[in-house]
């Protein structure tokens, strides 16, 4: 643990990977590794966060991420409260700040926020006394997912330095891609993006990623292929003509995957539309590390909760944003 202790983790809030240095990211993952073993014990519980209160404020539906944070908190003996509601621009009446004030009355030690508006964690952090962890904000970032993706790649490849990572699909609307691109490039990987131009956001090259002309180009020689979920419900903006055409032109199938390295890792943030982003044989094939991603998600979230509330540090920086 000497290497771990050498790094001072100075983030009060977890807004995104953008604020994190390479050392921060490596430190979180090293911490997560040390927690991962707890999940393999017969009694999967340590007293690390006993007496601490974790509020999961999920203002946009998400079963998977919420469950993962909840399990992470419980394995460290924290008390968890889940608050869920659906927000939309029409329910402006109760603002996120009203909600925050009510939660303050419970004296939480951390609030884990999922919200449909990009930047909502910054707003919340300005109005509460405790740390805020971003569990996905709009189309901005999903830092815990980015970290678990990094952790999964590191477990199989040892390092991200020099890896070719292809991310295929709806980059524009993916907060996972937002975090992944920053995290992967910061750790030295070469990130290639592929998809129809309707899915590639303006100026994304400023993050260090490159845009491939075709999925084939992106996948060729890749060490990791990550497919992103296609949101079937997006209709107001005509992004693709049909899932059928998308599956044929951009889906990750066996034929496309053969262009990648032999030891390629296939990833997906889930839930998968089988037969659309990815053919079933690829999703369930030997390359797939999709279930490792889920397991690592708990470990990463344990690490984040521990680092913002449990490590007893008092060298906290003022809230950003």
């Amino acid at each position, binding site marked *: 643990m000497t290497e771990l202790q050498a790094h001072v983790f100075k983030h009060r809030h977890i807004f995104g990977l953008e604020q994190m240095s390479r050392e921060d990211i490596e430190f979180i993952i090293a911490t997560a590794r040390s927690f991962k073993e707890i999940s393999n014990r017969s009694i999967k519980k340590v007293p690390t966060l006993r007496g601490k209160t974790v509020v999961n404020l999920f203002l946009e539906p998400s079963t998977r991420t919420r469950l993962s944070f909840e399990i992470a908190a419980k394995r460290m003996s924290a008390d968890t409260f889940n608050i869920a509601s659906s927000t939309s621009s029409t329910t*402006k009446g109760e603002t996120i700040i009203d909600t925050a004030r009510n939660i303050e009355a419970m004296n939480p030690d951390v609030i884990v926020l999922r919200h449909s*508006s*990009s*930047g909502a964690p910054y707003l919340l952090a300005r109005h509460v006394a405790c740390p805020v962890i971003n569990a996905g904000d709009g189309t*901005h970032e999903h830092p815990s997912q980015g970290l678990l993706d990094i952790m999964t790649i590191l477990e199989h490849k040892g390092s991200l330095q020099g890896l070719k990572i292809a991310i295929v699909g709806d980059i524009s609307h993916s907060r996972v891609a937002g975090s992944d691109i920053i995290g992967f490039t910061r750790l030295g990987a070469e990130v290639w993006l592929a998809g129809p131009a309707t899915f590639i956001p303006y100026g994304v090259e400023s993050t260090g990623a490159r845009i491939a002309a075709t999925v084939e180009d992106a996948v060729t020689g890749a060490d990791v292929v990550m497919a992103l979920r296609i949101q079937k419900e997006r209709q*107001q903006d005509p992004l693709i003509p049909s899932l059928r055409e998308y599956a044929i032109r951009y889906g990750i199938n066996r034929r496309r995957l053969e262009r990648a390295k032999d030891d390629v890792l296939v990833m997906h943030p889930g839930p998968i539309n089988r037969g659309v982003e990815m053919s079933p044989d690829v999703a369930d094939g030997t390359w797939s590390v999709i279930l490792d991603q889920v397991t690592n998600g708990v470990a990463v979230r344990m690490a984040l909760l521990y680092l913002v509330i449990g490590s007893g540090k008092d060298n906290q920086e003022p809230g950003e944003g």
Partner: protein
Amino acid sequence: MTAVIIIRNGRIIDPINDSDGTGEIWISGNRIVSPGSVDAGDAIRYDAAGSWVVPGLIDMHVHLREPGEEYKETIASGTRAAAAGGFTAVACMPNTRPVNDNGSITTFIRKTAETCPARVYPVGAVSKGSRGEELAEYAEMKEAGIVAVTDDGHPVMNSQMMRRALEYAGSHGLPVISHSEDAALSRNGCMHEGFVSTRLGLRGIPAAAESIMVYREIALAELTGCRMHLAHVSTAASVDLIRRAKERGVPVTAETAPHYFTLTDEAVRGYNTNAKMNPPLRSEADRRVIIEALGDGTFDAIATDHAPHSVLEKDIEFDLAANGIIGLETAVPLTLALVRSGRLTERRLVELLSVNPARILGVPGGTLAVGATADLTVINPTISFVYTEEAVLSKSHNSPFLGQTLTGKAVLTICDGRVGHDELQAR
């Protein structure tokens, strides 16, 4: 009783009279008179040494929120802010609640403004309720006092409606002011589309959402021969279209706002809702072209698009926050920054902030000629001040410039012969 006001030692900049030099301005009643022509026995005397005396500034694009949203701004508070910022007149957009689409709302605004420290020129709606479906009654509103029509806040998406608006407004001598935005292209967007929007995960509004409509407006002005004024122009592509239209003699005029030549989309970082406006803050390349176009005459006017919003609309999620910033009290220092950097001459500043707005709206002012109405502003170009929330006279504080040290400000504002704002102090 006719009060006499004498302002001495100021640098008088009056482009219409082609004058720029130290001198005296005498005011008797509500007129500018020639020095020495009236009894100066108990005149109020100002020493304006080191300052500029210019025709009263006119902001041709503000939102006063009354009637309907008085918690954000009232005609009284808005005109106090105007006078403090050096404006002797403002044109207020019709997107109040209810919309100013009929003579009685226009009359209400005029009446309410009568006792205020700055003139208020109501602008009527292009269409009833600004819904873009039926023409509003321009003749009745004109009689009640409107100086132009616009559906500002909403683009007129139907091109035939805009064509008819131009023709009908033209027959009543009114210009049409266009809020140029292709609503389908900008839908759900909350900032400029660029690498900053991508980084922040915020839906972008491409520059083309504006320039597409700017081109349509130019084409319609050309078709009808009627006067079209383009509001809050923010992009390089729009500037290019306007420049070429003017070369062909199309009857278009255009304004931009201080924030478009001062800030870029970088100001949104940190999800700062005080940098959220529509059109959004653009790229550095756009900003440079906007500055150039102010200097070379492509733009006719600088208007603030003063858009007060309370914390209720601003201290919320960025994508849900209201568009707009206040601007009346910062326009002079922000514009002066261009003069200091050599991008704008003093004369051009006066043309952009006074002469041309008066001409476009067809209202008095814009000159210090003897006999003209006594609307004038004294600007101290070197005084520095911290722009703080406490000092803001507007009812709302939504400005990205709060906390900044600004240089140059209006120190005396006289409207219709009456002092509306005074930091110069008579002696």
